[in-house]
């Protein structure tokens, strides 16, 4: 049985967010008290152009199940 089939399993998601848009959007979600699952961890970057493919690979390497690049 793979992990994904265990009932209480949930993915670990790393999100890279551009400071000027996606990160600001995540702040706005907070201001509006929008609720979303707690299994996402946001890493702030100054621009989506800053996101090196190496960062994404490292996240998977360290056990992340999903990576969100948003900007």
């Amino acid at each position, binding site marked *: 049985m793979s992990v994904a089939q265990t009932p209480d399993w949930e993915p670990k998601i790393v999100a890279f967010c551009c400071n000027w848009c996606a990160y*600001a959007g995540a*702040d706005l979600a*907070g201001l509006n*008290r929008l*609720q979303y699952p*707690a*299994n996402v961890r*946001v890493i702030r970057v100054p621009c989506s152009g800053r996101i090196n493919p190496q960062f994404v690979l490292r996240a998977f390497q360290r056990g992340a199940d999903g990576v969100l690049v948003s900007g």
Partner: protein
Amino acid sequence: MKRIGVFICHCGTNIASVVDVKKVAATAGSFPGVVYATDYQYMCSDPGQELIRKAIKEQRLDRVVVASCSPRLHEPTFRKTVESAGINPYLFEMANIREQCAWVHARDKDRATPKAIDLVRAAVAKVNRDGPLQAATIPITKRALVIGAGIAGMQAALDIADTGYEVVLLDREPTIGGNMVKLDKTFPTLDCSA
């Protein structure tokens, strides 16, 4: 060896009602390089900032992490705080445990605290690798160009020039004045436009 201080903000009840701030502070105290971790009601308030300054002096901190609201809001505030206590303002990081944790996981307190801990751990990891930065300066040519010499351009040019700076007022037409000078009287006082 680095001496990092971590400061967890309650933001009144905004953060503290969802996140177990004491637990976050206690856990942060064990992160590599962290020599001091505490929590306080409002870190951005005067007493809160004073608490940070005092801890920097007493604990001989050389780097600071504040876990509170979004850095888009208070990063400049806390950079000034640490600078006033003698630390380079770029040896500072924030963990956003309000907008991106407490507020969005208000109904999931069990997982909000571990998430806050993760966010603080990331900020500590980052501040560990911060280096002091100095703002560079660029020279300023004290001469302004105003493109378009209608009423807006003329007014801006006159105000700048009255301060003593040189202005070039440019227009593509053979005369200045723009649309305004075509007008007859102007409302509501019916005075002349030229």
